[in-house]
């Protein structure tokens, strides 16, 4: 796996290298280093707990963008079965930055969609770095309607730095594509679960994010503007992104506290990229549990509570 080490992960990686060295020595020279190895393992655990137990907002943003972090199609592979990709918006084209289709999650047949990033330049050019064009949102709407028609729940995986800012996107009215999704998801007559698995970049995220359950992976972020964008406007320089990340309150615990997100899905120690299978298991178990509850709820009640939930969002005085 492509392991890009973040600054704050370095102490752990260094200890892991030392542990590797100990293991190699004990193997090669047939000496008993069991106690040293055990103490090193304890030290790694303790360091990991210290580092990951007190992550700053900016550190979480970095984890959420980690190149080795599982992306949407990784979760499709690990947490879903029998995926059938369905392409195109039937209007202009197919947006590879937002693949979708039919999938089975824990025995439940669903329609899924998600934003997809690439790990190398070639894949990123195909996936447009996970930034959808209008066609992505219109394909999502087409698949939502299909979910509604066939009585399948709709599951959306959010992982985008934002909708694409480009000439073509404006010409084909990306603002309208997002707006229509937001409005129509509010009234979609089937259960909807949205999970922010990495970056929740503003309107580009919300365009598939109006759901009965809005969930976030532990180290994902969800924000009205990127920390860099906010820093550039309010601090006049992008280098202040860490302060902006802190000020924006974009991490899952804060958002749950404010009632803007319904729950957090735990990640394995060290983040989803340290144990993708475990992360996928946690996601599958959560989706299964939530869908079982939602599918038993009468649709009218579901729509009312979906509306009421978003209706309550806002803080002001009168």
């Amino acid at each position, binding site marked *: 796996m492509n392991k890009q080490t973040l600054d704050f992960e370095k102490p752990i990686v260094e200890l892991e290298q030392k542990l590797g060295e100990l293991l190699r020595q004990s193997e090669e020279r047939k000496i008993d280093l069991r106690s040293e190895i055990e103490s090193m393992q304890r030290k790694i655990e303790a360091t990991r707990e210290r580092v990951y137990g007190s992550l700053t907002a900016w550190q979480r943003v970095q984890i959420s963008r980690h190149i080795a972090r599982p992306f949407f199609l990784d979760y499709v592979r690990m947490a879903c079965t029998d995926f059938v990709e369905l392409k195109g918006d039937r209007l202009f084209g197919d947006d590879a930055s937002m693949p979708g289709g039919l999938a089975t999650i824990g025995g439940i047949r669903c329609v899924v969609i998600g934003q997809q990033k690439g790990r190398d330049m070639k894949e990123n050019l195909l996936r447009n770095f996970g930034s959808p064009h209008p066609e992505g949102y219109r394909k999502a709407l087409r698949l939502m309607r299909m979910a509604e028609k066939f009585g399948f729940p709709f599951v959306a995986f959010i992982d985008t730095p934002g909708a694409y800012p480009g000439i073509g996107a*404006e010409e084909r009215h990306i603002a309208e594509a997002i707006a229509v999704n937001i409005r129509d998801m509010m009234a979609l007559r089937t259960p909807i679960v949205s999970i922010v698995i990495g970056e929740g970049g503003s309107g580009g995220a919300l365009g598939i994010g*109006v759901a009965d359950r809005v969930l976030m992976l532990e180290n994902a972020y969800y*924000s*009205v503007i990127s920390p860099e964008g906010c820093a550039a406007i309010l601090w006049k320089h992008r280098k202040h992104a860490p302060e*902006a990340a802190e000020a924006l309150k974009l991490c899952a615990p804060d958002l749950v506290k404010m009632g803007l997100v319904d729950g957090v899905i735990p990640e394995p120690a060290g983040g989803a990229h340290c144990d993708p299978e475990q992360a996928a298991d946690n996601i599958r178990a959560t989706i299964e549990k939530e869908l079982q509850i939602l599918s038993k709820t009468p649709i009218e009640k579901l729509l009312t509570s979906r509306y009421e939930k978003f209706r309550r969002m806002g803080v*002001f005085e009168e």
Partner: protein
Amino acid sequence: MAIFKKPILRSLTSKTREMPTGLWTKCPSCSEVIHNFALEENLQVCPKCGHHFNLGSRERITSLVDPDSFEEHDASMSSVDPLGFKGVTTYADRLRSYKQKTGLVDAVTTGGAKINGHSVGLGVMDFNFLAATMGSVVGEKITRIIEFSTKQKMPVILVCASGGARMYEGMLSLMQMAKTSGALALHAQARLPYITILTNPTTAGVMASYASLGDIIIAEPKAMIGFAGPRVIRETTHQTLPADFQTAEFLEKHGLVDLIVERAKMRSTLSDILGYLGSK
């Protein structure tokens, strides 16, 4: 040897005309110097070239509705600082200074009104207040006027202008897009008309929610309308943007708005449309 010397015109060209501040305005489009009173009389439109200046929400309401028909709702609703946002300046400071500067409480004024006898729910955004960014107050007031109109079986008219979401309120501001659009879903289910008027500039979060959802979408001439800012697009794509990019005319050409209407004809146009869609 030259017989004629080039005349020196320096004294004529370098002379700048001094203007007393607060009395005259120079049109950025045709450079005409206009007396502020004339501009006011003409709804902040340049009498010479038709350039549309920013129009404050109070003046806008007066220009659109039947005399004395506007009944304001939620006039005192005001923003708080839910995140305790600290940047270079605090949100609380910004709010205080904009309230003082504009005499407004926040960036939108809403209420019930009549236009040529048609009862409507009206919301008018004011770019002078923090670039008409959408925070909880804007989202809540817009949602309430939509819900009120649904209940009263009235059309909704929203005059939009916005720099986008109010980032000082973080995710609370993003979620106003969902709240307002959700209210519009119910208004549409009740088969009631919704008209949006896009004024200079309408962008980002507001554009990606209620501004784009009108049954009828009207734009003011030359208004800048779009999702992403032109600077961001230029930096991301390294492309030269078309000259008319993100103008009302560009949107009309691409089929994204119903019509472009100059300010002086806005009231009569609304009245014509309400004649078809509204109920008296």
